[in-house]
């Protein structure tokens, strides 16, 4: 029992959860309006986590392989805007799934292009995706368009889907709704979990991040794993893009840019190591939850929104600092011979 407890305490997820609980209690205690611990607020937070969780899983997968991908918002924006533009220009009136398939397909291609650039030039993923993300943004805004596609012009399938709710609750005059798009997030989360934990491909992703040469010697097809990882990440980013459109009820390529840093911050807070090889789905979801609580609710305490990023920054430093400090302490232990 004690050993089991020790094991939990050593896990990063434990500390993230602890921080979440403490932070929630503090906010709940200080919040005069009592709106923090309300179903409405819970629904609101789940709503804003819908796309962030998908992006965070995407970022996590690449970080585990030992790289950093900063292009996923650009991939999502490209896929989303191109899809909605084509469908609205052609006055498409069919079901919504075609939008998802198109966007996912475009995302997949862009992800594979990332992998191709990385493997052809042997570039670090960070540099390569820094380059491709500018290219993707610029191509979509130059050649596809940069005007907002508003609710009125969106394909009817997407507009209808955006009104499909899993839950809708009325609190006072306000209607809180949880779009059924969150089911995508749930399914993708389960897929990523199973992929990473129960498939050789998933273990290959960890092995690659642990020691690339050892992975090669063990017989992993390192290049194939990389193409898979970037392709998969592109695909789920494309899906997240369309979900974003259904949540916002408009499609605008500039919407998603700049999301990458906050998402990577959430992933790192969740215990994924930026150097690769370590990271869990549970941790990442907790990380996103923590960042969402900070971003959505500090305002309830009257803390100005400028200060929210300060708190996020502080959490990152403290969160990653604790693990680093623990590792340092573990290494220092030497037993001295008892007094003669």
């Amino acid at each position, binding site marked *: 029992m004690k050993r089991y407890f020790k094991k939990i305490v050593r896990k990063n997820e434990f500390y993230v959860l602890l921080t979440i609980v403490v932070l929630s209690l503090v906010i709940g205690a200080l919040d005069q309006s009592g709106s923090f611990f309300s179903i409405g607020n819970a629904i609101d937070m789940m709503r804003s986590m819908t796309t962030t969780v998908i992006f965070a899983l995407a970022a996590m997968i690449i970080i585990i392989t030992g790289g950093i991908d900063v292009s996923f918002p650009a991939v999502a924006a490209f896929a989303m805007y191109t899809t909605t533009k084509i469908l609205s220009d052609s006055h498409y009136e069919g079901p919504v799934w075609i939008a998802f398939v198109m966007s996912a397909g475009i995302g997949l291609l862009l992800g594979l292009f990332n992998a191709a650039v990385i493997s052809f030039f042997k570039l670090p993923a960070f540099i390569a995706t820094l380059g491709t993300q500018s290219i993707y943004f610029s191509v979509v805004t130059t050649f596809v368009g940069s005007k907002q596609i508003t609710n009125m012009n969106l394909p009817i399938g997407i507009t209808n889907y955006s009104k499909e709710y899993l839950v809708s609750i009325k609190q006072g005059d306000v209607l809180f709704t949880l779009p059924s798009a969150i089911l995508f997030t749930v399914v993708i989360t389960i897929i990523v979990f199973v992929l990473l*934990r*129960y*498939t*050789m*491909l*998933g*273990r290959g992703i*960890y*092995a690659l*991040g*642990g*020691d690339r*040469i*050892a*992975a090669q*010697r*063990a*017989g*992993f097809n390192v290049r194939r794993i990389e193409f898979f990882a970037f392709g998969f990440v592109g695909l789920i980013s494309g899906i997240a893009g369309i979900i974003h459109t259904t949540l916002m009820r408009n499609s605008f390529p500039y919407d998603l840019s700049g999301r990458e840093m906050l998402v990577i911050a959430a992933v790192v807070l969740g215990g994924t190591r930026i150097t*690769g*090889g*370590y990271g869990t789905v549970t941790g990442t979801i907790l990380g996103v939850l923590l960042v969402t609580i900070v971003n959505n609710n500090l305002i309830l305490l009257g803390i100005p929104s400028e200060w929210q990023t300060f708190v996020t920054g502080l959490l990152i430093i403290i969160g990653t600092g604790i693990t680093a400090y623990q590792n340092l302490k*573990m290494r*220092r*232990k*030497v*037993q*001295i*011979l008892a007094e*003669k």
Partner: protein
Amino acid sequence: MSEVFLKATNINKAFAGVQALKNVNLTINKGEICCLAGENGSGKSTLIKIIAGAYKPDSGEIEINGKKYSAVTPKDTIREGIQIIYQDFSIFPNLTVAENIALNSELARNKKLVNWKSVYDTAKKALEMINVQIDLDARVADLSVADKQLIAISRALLQNAKLIIMDEPTTALTKKEIDSLFTVIDGLRKQGISILFVSHKIEEVFALAEKITILRNGENVISDDVKNFDRPKFIYYMTGRELNETYYEAQKTSKEPIMKVENIGKKGCFADISFELHSGEILGITGLLGSGRTELALALFGKEPIDTGKIFIDGKEVRLRDVKTAIRHGISYVPEDRLTEGLFLTQSISRNVVASVIDRLKGRMLFLSKPKMKEITSHWVSDLKIKTANVEDPVQTLSGGNQQRVVLAKWLATQPKVLILNGPTVGVDIGSKNDIHNILRRLADEGMAIVIISDDIPEVLYNCNRILIMRKGRIVGEFGGKSLTEELLAQKLTS
């Protein structure tokens, strides 16, 4: 039991015009422990890589289990049951012990899904095969080097290994760990598995091998039963010259100690350490890994300052708060791991040599004086006989022995009174090792006070006129070098 498992005949291999192997032969019998010895650059690793299928020989023939190949591929090798354990073990620090052991064989069986129960079962069985216990849930990054090696060995066994090739397996192990590794290897031999053991450490070769094959400059020098070798003969074949091992006697030591420490201690590292160090002597401090020897060295160099006790230099009490203070008091420290702590690998030899005396090189207008740099570098390159064509070449182009000389030069350039060396010849071959020892003896004879911290028993025994033994953070004995033998010293370290 003299059935041949592997026979390599007349292997030739050249790299960019340099002949790395010339008509090399190697035979390994079933269930035999064979040692492949040779200095750095003798062609040992090239030969292994050819057997592994990583390199293609230019000519020659390899026969495995009666089947002839002109060149093997990595796949042939694995199918024939040849497993190689590299110096870095090729393991995944971020994964658990169980997964590290079982992953390769799961992959080889072309599995797509992971069955965690079978991973654990396989790993457990593999560890039972070599009769060791390691927590299957532990992350490999948290384990000792010895445990990592056992993981690599048990992983190799899972692939139905018939020949295990180990590339310098004991480099980072302590004496005790080496002993238990040897027990494991002996157990494997009894199961009929052949071992090819690459090493240049004499003690190990004699303790373990049944047959020795020595390479020098890419050619076979000798291949014979171990019983036909003795130490001088082995060294002679390795180096091509006769080296004599004599005890070091301090020529003239100063009357007053140059350095004196009184009851110094550091929490969690060591306690109650007292000794005197005179100029002109070489003091050995030895102990197992974790005995506090490295921590003591770092404390004397001011890197990890002491909590209690006093240190005197030339009779005056000093507080070694940081490295700068230590250097000002004439103390220099040659670190344990030259690659990460001692050298700027990608920088030139000359920049490395002057790195510690950069303040003295100021020329006009705060710029470094090129002539002064050149003067210092060329002095040390010739004094320490660093073999290099050009001092502007990066340090990483040098061999281990020459790299170590650059580290030495860097600190000697500060003209220290006390030189502390931590593992001065780790990963250095016998010839260069002997040269480095001779340099240290000469420096001591010229009046420097030298401290050698090492767990290399012959090194401490033959080169130090006084030896302190540390165990669990305390000094447990002091001996004159001549009063001990290798066996006795080894015993005192562990008991």
